[in-house]
């Protein structure tokens, strides 16, 4: 904030003819745009409230709000270009802007000029060649984990391969276009599929078409466990904020979502909030999802007694077809009324599920679950891998991401378990606390882990179907959390 005013004044001073009116305008623009940075809880809820569907049905955005939003987006983009040293790109953004008064554009230009004058000093980095070499080893490592250790191979194999391809010197496989030359092909996969949000959303649609919300519908209260497990997201966010300025608020939010244990949600949010960290975040998310059978059991044994683990739950009731068909629409309507920013994710998940449950578009549902999701998975994996460039991955931040991601998984697991124990204190129908750990999502691995640990304590204790309730609720829960983060820091 201070930096910006200084820069603005500097710019004004440079041009010589600065009047106090102009200087005031700088502040006004800055205020209009940057005040969002310091929010109180009340402000945050108020902001969320102003972005609910319910509110907006009665108070559609005014012309002024739209202009302010456009200006804020423009300013943020110009600043991002400046701080990356792309002065030409900053000018281009200003040049393309429209529907804004000239003085605002003029001020932005001054800002770029001042920054250009000061010059851009790139951060210290590994020598490029060494960095590429190491990243190729990282890519080979991911492929090894995928094949030999079975770590989420559907994603980690293409991601690892993408990392290798991206870091090949001179090949420019994910480089942008040059005059008269096409860009590298991974550049297209990334910009067309990931930057646009299309690939993660299509994957989410396929996941929806594969998911059965029946267990959740049969025992709705287990949804609370899926809520509790999102605690890991926000603790990791808090941890990232505590790293002494290493991460911006956007970065912190993107890191936190690792705790959602849900690949497409993590990629979607990271591509919007913190594209530079996308590679590391996706790798962390999928790696820990693969490690769920190793991470969760010790926590589960630590926080529960053998008796608790042996609790047998009563059989789930039958859920009618109609309920299952209505459910996706119910969730979508709830989401659009309360949290429109989550509707791309929730909407596509529910579209997939509606296609499956309605039984009238089986051929579309089959395709969404098979050829479409497979095609997109290959391209998404390669595109995510293309973000594993040395300068984005080989730094202290990645270690922070890995540590915070692990913490998020652990805390999410613990929160789910503890809420389940608390529910047992309150409700009469006993819940086996192990199914609380399935609330982190990582569908369906976490539910299987709950089942396995439950069987150890009581060989008659089949928890799988019970754990699927919190498991799928956790998917909704982390999409909701992503929506909140998009609305507040996006």
């Amino acid at each position: 904030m201070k930096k910006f005013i200084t820069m603005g004044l500097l710019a004004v001073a440079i041009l010589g003819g600065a009047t106090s009116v102009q200087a005031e305008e700088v502040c006004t623009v800055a205020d209009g745009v940057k005040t969002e940075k310091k929010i109180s809880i009340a402000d945050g809820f108020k902001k969320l409230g102003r972005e609910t569907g319910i509110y907006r049905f009665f108070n559609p955005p005014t012309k002024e709000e739209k202009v302010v939003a456009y200006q804020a987006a423009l300013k943020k983009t110009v600043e991002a270009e400046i701080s990356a040293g792309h002065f030409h790109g900053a000018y281009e953004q200003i040049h393309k802007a429209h529907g804004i008064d000239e003085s605002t554009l003029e001020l932005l230009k001054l800002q770029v000029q001042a920054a250009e004058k000061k010059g851009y000093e790139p951060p210290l980095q590994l020598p490029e060649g060494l960095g590429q070499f190491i990243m190729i080893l990282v890519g080979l490592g991911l492929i090894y984990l995928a094949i030999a250790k079975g770590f989420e191979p559907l994603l980690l194999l293409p991601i690892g391969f993408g990392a290798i391809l991206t870091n090949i010197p001179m090949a420019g496989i994910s480089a942008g276009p040059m005059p008269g030359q096409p860009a590298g092909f991974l550049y297209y996969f990334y910009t067309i599929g990931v930057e646009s949000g299309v690939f993660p959303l299509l994957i989410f649609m396929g996941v929806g078409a594969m998911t059965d919300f029946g267990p959740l519908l049969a025992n709705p209260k287990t949804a609370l466990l899926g809520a509790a497990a999102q605690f890991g997201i926000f603790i990791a966010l808090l941890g990232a904020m505590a790293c002494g300025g290493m991460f911006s608020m956007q970065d912190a939010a993107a890191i936190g979502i690792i705790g959602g244990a849900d690949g497409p949600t993590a990629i979607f949010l990271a591509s919007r909030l913190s594209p530079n960290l996308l590679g590391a975040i996706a790798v962390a998310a999928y790696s820990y999802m693969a490690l769920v059978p190793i991470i969760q059991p010790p926590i589960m044994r630590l926080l529960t007694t053998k008796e608790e683990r042996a609790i047998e739950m009563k059989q789930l009731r039958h859920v009618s077809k109609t309920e299952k068909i209505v459910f996706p629409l119910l969730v979508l309507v709830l989401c659009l009324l309360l949290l429109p920013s989550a509707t791309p994710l929730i909407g596509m998940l529910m579209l997939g599920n509606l296609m499956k449950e309605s039984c009238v578009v089986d051929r579309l549902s089959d395709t969404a679950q098979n050829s479409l999701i497979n095609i997109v998975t290959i391209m998404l994996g390669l595109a995510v891998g293309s973000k594993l460039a040395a300068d984005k991955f080989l730094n202290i931040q990645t270690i922070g991401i890995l540590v915070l991601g692990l913490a998020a998984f652990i805390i999410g697991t613990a929160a789910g378990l503890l809420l389940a124990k608390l529910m047992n204190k309150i409700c009469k129908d006993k819940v086996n606390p192990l199914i609380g750990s399935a609330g982190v999502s990582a569908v369906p691995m976490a539910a299987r882990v709950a089942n396995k640990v439950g069987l150890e304590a009581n060989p008659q204790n089949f928890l799988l179907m019970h754990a699927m309730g919190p498991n799928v609720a956790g998917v909704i829960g982390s999409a909701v959390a992503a929506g909140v983060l998009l609305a507040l820091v996006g």
Partner: protein
Amino acid sequence: MELLMQGVVLMVIGMATVFAFLVLLIIAMNSSSAFFSKFAHLFPEEEVKAAPAGGTDPTAEIAVALAAIRAKRG
């Protein structure tokens, strides 16, 4: 420190929203379950399955048509 406070703010708002959303969803699911069990006679399981009959997949349709043609010819 101020940054940390922002994190706490996000956490409070975020967890509150997640819980609020899922609590509302539980209420909605319970209502939906109550509604459909009360009016179960209006939504027989068969009805839903029968629905697509009206607008089925063109391939299947054409396949039927062709089968008929072949049957007649053969």
